[in-house]
């Protein structure tokens, strides 16, 4: 068997729906799930005689993403027509951007295992209009739903800088986090807000020589799982194909492949030589856009701290684990709620635990965000403080958190009402400890012998005290008394 080593090379093309009030070139509201062809007008139906008018909000949203992706923003950008005949494309051309996209040459930092990051180049990001949807029926005809036609679509093309399926997934997830942070897209995969098309090939080293396999482009993936699995599948398929045919990028054609979700395989759709000629030319119905410095500064003002930067900061500034930092920064509003609670005096780690272990759980059960639970950041901060001071135990804090959501009352009031304040009065606790010691002579003896048994016996005695106080004793104080009495 010949010695064979290989490197995976992946570049991504991503389409993101922008959540503007209206479509890209007309006044129709964006649509999801409405009755077919109910969100349309002469313009997005491409009727004879209509003209497009650019949606300024869509352009601004697109520029926000481009800025977040560290792209150079064009001073002058224009629109082009991309021609192809398809039933879901009313004009048989799509208004897109060809040689002067609104942005180019950027990069995105994606998080990897263990708190590391990797920089992936962005070739360009441009704006276009989405097509409608073909609805295939059992009968010998298809129908077209044009509700989606004209939805603002941001196309992002990355450099082939990703070297594994997990990196591809990480980029996709990170991009989703960014567009949600910026508030420019819901990034809802199930609603088709993000679609991915990876370009995959391998660099194979065999007996000291290097071979590149032909590039395969997998079309229209709309889940992180399908994206990751399709890359994994392609790696194996290309390895097999290379072993079988020895075809390289020089001798083989670039292919377009489709993903079959049920079988988790990619299937050939077309070879490069069948690729259509889109006959791009400048869209004469729209005027080019000049992006002035003032306008760009105004748009830049709408940006926020990027999630990856927050995540890194939480680790260094608040000493949180990378995992916790990742959970807190997954959604912008969770992160902001966390930061407000810390700003109100909460201890970061304690606030983090309350939020990630209890807050997010309750929010998930209710199908909402942490910030929708009706709790003020200051109240969460208070809760963390009474845990920190030992007034209530961490397990009591869970009950208080839940009660806060239910009643909207403040944590100190709930702690009293629910009788969850810990007994920390040493004098009172000493009496109880003495009773417990008197009743458990064997355990006392075990503690004094030392060794493994001693630890267990100590825990048993502590448990007895807690039981006698119905869990309201401060375990730290009890432990100290025990140590003193037995020491």
């Amino acid at each position, binding site marked *: 068997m010949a010695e064979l080593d290989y490197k995976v090379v992946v570049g991504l093309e991503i389409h993101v729906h922008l959540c503007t009030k209206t479509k890209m070139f007309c006044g129709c509201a964006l649509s999801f799930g409405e009755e077919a062809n109910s969100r349309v007008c*002469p313009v997005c139906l*491409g*009727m*004879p*005689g*209509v*003209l*497009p*008018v*650019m949606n300024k909000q869509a352009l601004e949203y697109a520029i926000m993403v481009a800025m977040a992706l560290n792209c150079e923003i064009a001073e002058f950008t224009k629109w082009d*027509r991309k*021609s192809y*005949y398809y*039933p879901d494309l*009313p*004009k*048989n*051309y799509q208004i897109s951007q060809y040689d002067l996209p609104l942005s180019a040459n950027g990069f995105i930092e994606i998080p990897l295992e263990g708190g590391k990051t990797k920089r992936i180049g962005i070739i360009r990001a441009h704006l276009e209009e989405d097509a409608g949807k073909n609805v295939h029926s059992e009968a010998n005809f298809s129908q077209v739903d044009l509700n989606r036609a004209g939805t603002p679509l941001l196309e992002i093309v990355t450099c082939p800088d990703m070297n594994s399926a997990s990196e591809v997934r990480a980029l996709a997830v990170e991009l989703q986090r960014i567009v949600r942070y910026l508030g420019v897209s819901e990034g809802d995969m199930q609603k088709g807000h993000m679609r991915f098309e990876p370009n995959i090939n391998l660099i194979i080293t065999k007996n000291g020589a290097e071979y590149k396999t032909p590039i395969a482009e997998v079309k229209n993936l709309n889940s992180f799982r399908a994206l990751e699995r399709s890359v994994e599948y392609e790696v194996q398929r290309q390895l097999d194909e290379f072993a079988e045919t020895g075809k390289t990028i020089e001798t083989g054609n670039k292919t377009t492949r489709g993903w079959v979700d049920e079988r988790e395989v990619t299937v050939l759709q077309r070879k490069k030589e069948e690729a259509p*000629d889109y*006959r*791009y*030319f400048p869209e*004469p*119905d*729209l*005027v080019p856009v000049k992006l002035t410095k003032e306008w760009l500064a105004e748009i830049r003002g709408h940006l926020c701290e990027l999630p990856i930067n927050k995540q890194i900061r939480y680790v260094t500034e608040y000493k949180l684990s990378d995992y916790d930092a990742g959970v807190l920064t997954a959604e912008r509003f969770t992160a902001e709620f966390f930061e407000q609670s810390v700003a109100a005096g909460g201890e970061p780690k304690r606030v983090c635990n309350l939020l990630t272990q209890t807050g997010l759980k309750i929010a998930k059960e209710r199908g909402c965000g942490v910030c929708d639970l009706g709790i003020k950041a200051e109240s969460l901060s208070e809760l963390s403080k009474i845990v920190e001071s030992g007034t209530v135990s961490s397990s009591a804090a869970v009950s208080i958190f839940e009660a806060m959501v239910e009643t909207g009352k403040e944590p100190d009031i709930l702690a009293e009402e629910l009788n969850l304040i810990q007994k920390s009065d040493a004098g009172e606790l000493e009496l109880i400890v003495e009773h417990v010691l008197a009743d458990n002579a064997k355990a006392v003896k075990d503690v004094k012998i030392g060794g493994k048994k001693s630890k267990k016996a100590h825990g048993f005695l502590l448990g007895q005290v807690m039981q006698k106080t119905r869990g309201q004793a401060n375990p730290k104080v009890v432990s100290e008394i025990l140590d003193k009495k037995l020491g």
Partner: protein
Amino acid sequence: MQDELLNMDCRQLRDGIASGRVKSVAATEAVFKAIEKYEGAIGAYISTFKKQAISKAEEIDKKIASGETVGELAGVPVAVKDIMCTSFGTTTCASKILESFHAPYNATAVEKLAAADAVIVGKTNMDEFAMGSSTENSGLKQTVNPWDKSRVPGGSSGGSAAAVAGRLCYAALGSDTGGSIRQPASFCGVVGLKPTYGRVSRFGLVAFGSSLDQIGPLTRTVGDCALLLNVIAGHDPADSTSIDEKTAPVCDCLGKLDEPIEGLKIAVVPEFNAGAESGVQKVIAKAIDVYKRLGAEVIEVDMPHLDYAIAAYYVIATAEASSNLARYDGVHYGHRTEEPADYIEVYSKSRAEGFGKEVKRRIMLGTYALSSGYYDAYYLKALKVRNLIRGDFAKVFERCDCIMMPVAPTTAFKIGEKIDDPLAMYLSDVYTIAANLAGIPAISVPCGFDEKKLPIGLQILAPAFGEEKLLRTARIYERETDWHKEKPRISN
């Protein structure tokens, strides 16, 4: 009475109606009587709306009788080229492919006519999708020249020009992509104005060459032209290429129409004009002499790039058209073939059956020009030529107020004469195309006849948004001459 009524121009009629001396209903009925009598011979209209027009006229008369304020064109019967969408009737573009298309909305220009209380009598014939110079490319009917029924009315707005000349309406809207208002105006002896690109909204104008198309009026007098322009001009938020009021405010073209222009400087391009028939050249020279006599200075200029205008035009216009007409495919819009063998045939057969020869030729040309590998050599180069032509005009307008030249190298030619020679047909646009490429306004004013008693138009071109001065310049000539009072004798 009938003739007297029909011979009024728009302003006379409007004033008559506004003062109560004339009823809009009477004028509208007179128009329909003329249509009944002559339409069979001329063939100007694709559709007419008698009932709707008369009830609108009655409404205007009532408004006036009760002292309500009415619009600038109150009660005036006008026609609209069948390339502008109307929420009533069909919008066919004279194509079989759109023969039964009902638009659900009005073009902005139509909307403005209606808002000015004009009475829309019908929609006029044209070359299919405005592609042609003789209206012979209409997929639906033949229009003839009211001055000589064996001859073409010009095109593509041939129906509008024939209707205005034949007194089948008082004024009409046309569209001009490469001369489609001015050339038929010249052939039919009426006034035709192509405004500056962006002056009139294109919303609702079915696109041929989007960067060249412009709606404009065809009328019997320069004053009517100014009146109609006043009504239809202006920024439209639905058309991003229409100019905003800040950049170029719409001015009243009518108010100062009769004010003289001191020290008018007219540019002529002798070399370029030499291509016209001698009869046309003579008449144009005489027309320019009228200006000279009135004290204008005539300056000979050189416009080296005009020779390339036709080549550049037929690349740009067809490229845009190939894309604009893609939607007529039997799937989205237009005629669908009866029994396609497969999915591809729905497209190919529908288009093969629906489009006429010239439209197909231009779609082919444009598709070729935009194809990968040819784009730089054709489309990009044509855009460069376009810029050079703009430059030529800019240079001339630095020292001259306007340029004068023929509208067309010939007068109206015989029906069938050029139909099998597309190149000869394309060359008949030689004088009109440059204004579209440069986006500047240009007008055709009746300035005489050739030896066959066929009308000739003087073309005056002006800098962008210079319509007010352009119309005043045209009016100077009209005041001095009686050509615009001539009318064709139509026999049945």
